[in-house]
């Protein structure tokens, strides 16, 4: 499009303005993160002397100390366990239900499916107190199961929605011919439906994985034992009593930030797709 109206003075002014806006955003994203990472390589004294400059010399000691104080080996393990288990369970249960909703006739589908879709927009914060009370009452407070069950439950509305909508697009004929060949519904699910759900499975995995990896609110109230907490809870510890130990705080924040940054840079495309798929209407 080499339209002449685009090439005047205002065209270049417009370009400068647009680039300006994007570079400002880029700066606003990079600078705080850069400041954080650089500060993590200063001793607390060095940080107090110079709060903006580059570390000179680079001090690496904050990392092992923050790692030890934060008990990050335990927390990383827990975060991985919760995230992977929840993601697998959400995938399985969502696609099972999605298959039934999409391909098996039943009068229950209408209201069951609708109740899941409503769950997408319900604010989880509003069930935090009752969930805490119920978890306590059934004796699951401070247990891994007591954390996994809510995690899976809150992942299901989006999963069931995406799963159902996707499985609807699988041709009925495929399932009917398998039925005629004598395959059971379980068999059809495992050998026809599941292999076909790959694109939506990737989207849903990324949504669930990032959601649970960063989840803080529920685990903060459902667990008080160090040994079952996850990464975000451990990081928050560095903002309270340890807040004046700047070097270690910044190291802890960097440790908490890096895995997600790497994950994002690897799966950028899929994450972008997941976000737009997740932005569904009610």
């Amino acid at each position, binding site marked *: 499009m080499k339209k002449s109206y685009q090439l005047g003075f205002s065209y270049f002014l417009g370009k400068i303005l647009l680039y300006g806006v994007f570079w400002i955003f880029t700066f606003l*994203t990079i600078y705080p993160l850069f400041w954080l990472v650089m500060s993590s390589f200063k001793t607390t004294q060095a940080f107090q002397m110079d709060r903006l400059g580059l570390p000179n010399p680079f001090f690496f000691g904050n990392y092992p100390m923050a790692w030890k104080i934060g008990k990050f080996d335990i927390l990383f393990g827990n975060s991985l366990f919760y995230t992977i288990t929840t993601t697998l369970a959400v995938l399985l249960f969502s696609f099972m239900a999605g298959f*039934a909703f999409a391909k098996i006739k039943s009068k229950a589908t209408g209201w069951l499916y609708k109740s899941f879709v409503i769950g997408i927009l319900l604010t989880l914060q509003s069930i935090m107190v009752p969930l805490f009370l119920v978890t306590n009452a059934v004796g699951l407070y401070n247990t891994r199961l007591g954390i996994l*069950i809510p995690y899976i439950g809150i992942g299901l509305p989006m999963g069931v929605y995406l799963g159902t909508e996707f499985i609807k697009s699988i041709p009925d004929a495929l399932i009917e011919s398998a039925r005629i060949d004598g395959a059971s519904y379980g068999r059809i699910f495992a050998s026809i439906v599941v292999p076909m759900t790959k694109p939506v499975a990737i989207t849903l995995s990324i949504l669930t994985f990032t959601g649970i990896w960063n989840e803080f*609110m529920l685990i903060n109230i459902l667990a008080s034992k160090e040994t079952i907490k996850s990464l975000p809870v451990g990081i928050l510890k560095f903002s309270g009593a340890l807040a004046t130990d700047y070097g270690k705080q910044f190291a802890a924040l960097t440790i908490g930030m890096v895995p997600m940054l790497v994950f994002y840079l690897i799966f950028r495309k899929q994450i972008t*797709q997941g976000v737009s798929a997740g932005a569904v209407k009610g």
Partner: protein
Amino acid sequence: MKITTSKGEERWAYWLLVLPAVLLYFAVITFPTIFSIYLSMTNFSGGQLFGAELTFVGFRHYGEMFKDPYFWLALKNNFYIILVSVFGQIPIGFVLAYVLFRKLVGLQNFFQTMVYLPNTISTIVIGVMFQSFFSPYGAYTELLKKINPTYENTLMLDPNLAMIPVLIVILWMYTGYYMIIFLANLQKIDISVIEATKIDGANEWQTLRYVILPALSGVIVTTAILAISGSLKSFDLIFAMTAGNPARRTSVLSIYMFDNAFRGAPNYPLANAISTFMVVLSLLLIVIIQKLEQRFGGRE
């Protein structure tokens, strides 16, 4: 086509497939929501939950809630977040998406990554980081001191100002989210329609005004709803950044509820009244969304 299945087998398979999801969903979301409404009208003060004798007190705790100035403070802050989202994140996100979509700048992948990046980092990390960043010892203070050496940073201490850094961080963090949504939906528009209007002599503004915006009306409604319900969800970031302080001036509904349930002496019925209020508010929003979608949507 008639399939060689008995109705019984079909029903059996259906419930077997649906049950795990339904049970978990009802246990985690539906039951606690309903139970919360019930508890909000009792005098439950901790201890045994099931089988305990609870006195029904009606709507007393709702009255307590509406009389509490901290409730209104929290609600007001939720409202500010809605304003920043609807009139900040959505328009800026749209403009950024449009510029990227029309390839009006180069480095599209790079810029897209930079704007979206804050979304990927844990809100707890972001919150604690900006607590430091905006604090008197943080980079923000030092930068302003370079401009004005006598600058005193009271941003995080002054109750009247404390909400400003929170809102800035919220704007910074989630604009990329809306940009991605708009970008994805812009890419669904048939490119030949845009080309055709160009050939007909429409300029950039006219194309935007008469072709692209109408095509996105449904998406705009959806993002507005996401922004409003998202504002009710804000918790982690503020919890980590200010914990609602100073003087609870940066509290939002969910933090107000958290304070009543988990800080100091627990007031569970009041906390449940707040939960119920939030559920009603989100259900109300869902209804509004559906009405708006029926009117403006369906053209994506």
